[in-house]
């Protein structure tokens, strides 16, 4: 082993307090980034997951101008013959008002988003049905699933209650139907249909006077990474139709744009934290240098060059960086593992979608290692500036 590395190691390990302090500074810097990533990227991914699972699928097909007039079943069948496609389902959306008499009092809620679904296909392509906390998913033409917020605003609608839904059809006429509440939907974090009502798509088509028309086709893939490829294949296969096909990133861009910039800011704060840990290293190493004035003087007097002294203290920075990066990464991975295994959520909000981003994990470890070395440069330089005769005066 190079004597400078041995000396750097011994000097550092014989000052355990300083070593622990410096390593902790690096560790905390890394841990802050990991925790930020788990929480904020996890929240972002959870939102993407729920948008994909409940609303947009991995690919969302709409019509460029209005509603899709082509048979929804033919489009669903077209998609389902592709091996990467798990399922596809049509959706139709509108808004309407609901009134219901509860305990002798009439409650009315207006501008409720109404979603029409094909129950059988929807249960294959979407996980909205899993958000039913009470009752069942839409199963007949006159059944309605209320979002938990809508049910609450209607005075506490329950499964089995009867209510009236009014929408305005394509010709501007009011269309009123009576429905029976068959289920209440409640998704963690309210990302599902908590503020909507779900009915059978054919009933909604009738009410809207849009027979055979579809608002969108939601396509769920076995392998989401193939979304772009399948989307392009779909558009190429229907050149004469005015279809718009978007991947989840494209269709949810507006909803996600704010989150993206938020995450970028949080990441920056994390890196500022890492930067401040570099200042801690500078301070601790300056203390180490000051505490080793005598040794530096002795080394210089027996022939060590400035370069040798510089290397010893840079080695110390490398040791601090390596141990700190190792411990910090291990702690960060431990936290990530815990968050993933426990499906971490805050105040019963949506569970975080935790993933191991190895590229970022390695980048964070390398950055902190590099920062530790950079932080050691100034103390190392100061050490080289000690004149042997000055250092020996302290002897």
């Amino acid at each position, binding site marked *: 082993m190079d*004597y400078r590395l041995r*000396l750097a190691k011994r*000097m550092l390990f014989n000052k355990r307090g300083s070593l622990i302090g410096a390593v902790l500074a690096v560790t905390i810097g890394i841990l802050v980034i990991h925790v930020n990533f788990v929480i904020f990227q996890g929240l972002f991914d959870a939102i993407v997951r729920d948008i994909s699972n409940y609303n947009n699928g991995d690919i969302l097909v709409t019509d460029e101008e209005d509603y899709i007039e082509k048979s929804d079943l033919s489009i669903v069948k077209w998609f389902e013959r592709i091996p990467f496609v798990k399922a596809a389902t049509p959706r139709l959306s509108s808004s309407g008002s609901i009134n219901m008499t509860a305990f002798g009092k009439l409650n009315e809620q207006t501008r409720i988003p109404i979603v029409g679904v094909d129950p059988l296909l929807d249960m294959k392509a979407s996980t909205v049905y899993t958000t039913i906390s009470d009752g069942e998913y839409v199963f007949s033409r006159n059944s309605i699933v209320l979002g938990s917020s809508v049910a609450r605003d209607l005075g506490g609608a329950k499964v089995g209650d009867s209510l009236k839904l009014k929408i305005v059809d394509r010709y501007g006429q009011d269309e009123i139907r009576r429905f029976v509440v068959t289920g209440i939907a409640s998704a963690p974090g309210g990302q599902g249909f908590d503020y909507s009502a779900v009915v059978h798509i054919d009933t909604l088509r009738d009410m809207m006077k849009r027979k055979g028309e579809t608002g969108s086709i939601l396509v769920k893939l076995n392998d989401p990474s193939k979304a772009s490829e399948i989307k392009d294949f779909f558009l190429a296969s229907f050149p004469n139709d005015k279809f718009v096909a978007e991947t989840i990133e494209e269709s949810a861009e507006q909803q996600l744009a704010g989150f993206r910039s938020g995450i970028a800011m949080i990441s920056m704060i994390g890196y500022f934290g890492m930067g401040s840990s570099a200042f801690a290293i500078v301070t601790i190493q300056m203390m180490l240098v000051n505490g080793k004035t*005598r*040794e530096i003087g*002795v080394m210089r*007097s027996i022939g060590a060059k400035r370069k040798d002294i510089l290397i010893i203290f840079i080695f110390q920075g490398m040791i601090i960086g390596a141990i700190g990066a190792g411990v910090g990464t291990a702690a960060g991975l431990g936290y990530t593992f815990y968050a993933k295994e426990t499906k971490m959520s805050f105040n019963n909000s949506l569970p975080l979608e935790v993933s191991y981003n190895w590229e970022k994990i390695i980048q964070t470890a390398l950055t902190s290692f590099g920062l530790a070395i950079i932080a050691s440069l100034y103390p190392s330089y100061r050490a080289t500036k000690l*004149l042997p005769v000055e250092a020996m005066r302290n002897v």
Partner: protein
Amino acid sequence: MSKVLEINDVTKIYGERENTVTALNNVSFSIEKGEFVLVVGSSGSGKSTLLNMIGLLDRPTTGKIRIDGIDTTNLSDNKISSFRNKKLGFIFQFSNLITDLTVFENVLLPRQIAGTDYSAEKDAMELLKAVGIEDQINKRANKISGGQAQRVAIARGLINKPSIVLADEPTGNLDSVSAEIIVQLLKSMCKKLGQTFIIVTHDRHQFGEVDRVITIKDGRAFEGDHPSKLEVLV
């Protein structure tokens, strides 16, 4: 015998303008190879300053210092470091071992700095045997007694076979028994290795018979140590 050290008109002035102190004033002398020389003088006389100049730890304000015929005045910092490593051996008052290293590693250190590891461990072991401390080699340097540490310092000072061994009050921190052992060790090493030893001490009598004594008084160098017979070295 050849001259191993030549000091010509060396003056060292500390401070600036009116706040100056002349630590050495036109000091000139030379030392032959293999001589055992004592540098004596009262506290503040300039003997440690002289040792720093000879050890190239500090530069003279004016004058020249030649070691092994090489003028050290204009050497770069790197060259001075190499020069110190190869030509000079240091023994300090408080031994100044690197406490983070073992006894053996301390002795090896100058050789490792030189980057010539060939036979280093064998040489270090031989030196440690010669100073009688071969049974302590794996101990941390701060776990041995002051006398033992000083022996290790002697071994470290000799490992690179320097032309001149400089010792600054090598017995100053030791009890009389240990001091006597160190004095005898230094003398025997000088005789055995044929190297030049320059010892700065305030206790002339501890060293008994030596080849030569140089007295530093008020920044001037004098041959001899008898107050009435001091002869200015020019």
